[in-house]
């Protein structure tokens, strides 16, 4: 039997084991421990995770699996220490109960999500007091000393470094610096252009934003002259190959430096 390492989405050692067992359930009637152990271990080989905690957890589970497998392969129970046997059985039960607990909470989490979504249909009011009553609202109390406030700031601003919440980050941010390079090249060849035409290839608003920021930079450096008659009118651009303001001269120098390096 060949075991192919597919790219699975798993959340950790326990989750992986759970997935290996439950996914094989459909394909194989007789699921062997050997199959699971081989596949599990192959994941360890493929592990690029540098997290020590996770790696050790992986190894711990793998060790238990390998031990169980070794025990299974040897016929009979002769030559086995009873204490060792019991310890191994205990390990197996512990692993099993962890798998069960894991499954249970996965199931209940789905129910909680459902409840969260259902509860969202009720909308509370968040506007607060009526304007007239606000006037008599007593003065706010910070309730913290300067030292405590400082400590809150330390935590609030440091946690983001250790723990950036990247869920909503758009990592595929267009580079303004690429946009500058592209705009410079195209303005140099076209000499005169309209902004809309230059961004006609952009799919996303954020890309247009990047080009607009790039344009502002080029204007600031004096490399491009931009005009717009009214707010809705097209933005017309004229190339200036030899800017005379200090910023532009410096930028030209820097850009040619990068070109040489």
């Amino acid at each position, binding site marked *: 039997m060949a075991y192919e390492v597919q790219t699975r989405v798993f959340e950790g050692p326990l989750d992986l084991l759970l997935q290996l067992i439950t996914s094989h359930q459909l394909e194989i009637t007789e*699921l062997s421990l050997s199959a699971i152990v081989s596949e599990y271990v192959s994941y360890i080989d493929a592990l690029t995770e540098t997290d020590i*905690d996770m790696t050790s957890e992986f190894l711990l589970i793998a060790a238990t699996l390998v031990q169980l497998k070794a025990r299974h*392969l040897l016929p009979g129970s002769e030559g086995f220490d009873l204490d060792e046997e019991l310890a191994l059985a205990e390990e197996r039960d512990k692993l099993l109960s962890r798998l069960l607990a894991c499954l249970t*909470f996965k199931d209940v*989490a789905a129910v909680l*999500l459902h409840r969260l979504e259902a509860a969202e249909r*009720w909308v509370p*009011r968040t506007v607060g007091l009526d304007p007239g009553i606000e006037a008599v609202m007593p003065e706010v109390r910070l309730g913290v000393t300067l030292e405590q406030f400082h400590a809150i700031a330390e935590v609030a601003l440091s*946690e983001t470094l250790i723990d950036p919440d990247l869920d*909503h980050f758009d990592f595929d941010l267009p580079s303004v610096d690429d946009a500058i390079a592209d705009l410079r090249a195209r303005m140099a060849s076209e000499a005169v252009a309209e902004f809309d035409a230059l961004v006609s290839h952009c799919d996303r608003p954020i890309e247009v934003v990047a080009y607009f920021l790039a344009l502002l930079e080029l204007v600031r450096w004096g490399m491009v002259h931009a005009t717009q008659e009214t707010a809705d009118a097209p933005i017309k651009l004229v190339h200036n190959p030899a800017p005379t303001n200090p910023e532009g001269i410096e930028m030209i120098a820097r850009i040619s430096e990068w070109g040489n390096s």
Partner: protein
Amino acid sequence: MDVASTIEAILFVAEEPVSGAELSQLLEAPRTEVDEALLTLQDRHQTGPSGLVVRNTGGGWRLYTDPEAKPYLERFAATERATRLSKAALETMAIVAYKQPISRGQVAEVRGVDSDRVLRTLERRGLIFEAGRAEGPGQAVLYSTTNLFLEKLGLSSLAELPPLADHVPPAGVVDVLERPFRPEESSNESTN
């Protein structure tokens, strides 16, 4: 204006659920009278024509819009949408909800993954809080769920959480999990 209407006005301006005890203090009325008035108010919105409902969630009472109005509110700009919780965050939240107070180490044990980050996210969202410290060496921080957690789930107390026993995997699944570990079947295995 009767007591029920006064309570309605208070709940209207409150930015989180208000408990019966608090209402009783504000109105200088006995608790029984407040409880009765709350039921009257709830009944008024339920039976009469109204776009609002009174609910007991998150350790107190609060006014909400009728769920039927939700589609219109979504079109109305003012409704805020909370950013979705990840699957990992939901699982961690479930573990804390049922095992509270619980340390991060215990959460990690159940999930099999280091859960510090997720716990911090949940704490920052106001869904869990540091409820205390474990006794003994290390004095690990213990987490519990907040009233906001209850409110977000539409629960009035933790007792209303669905019983965990209902979510234990069925016998068939347990069997599948156990099968590879059963010594009897090892004889079927040849080599590998």
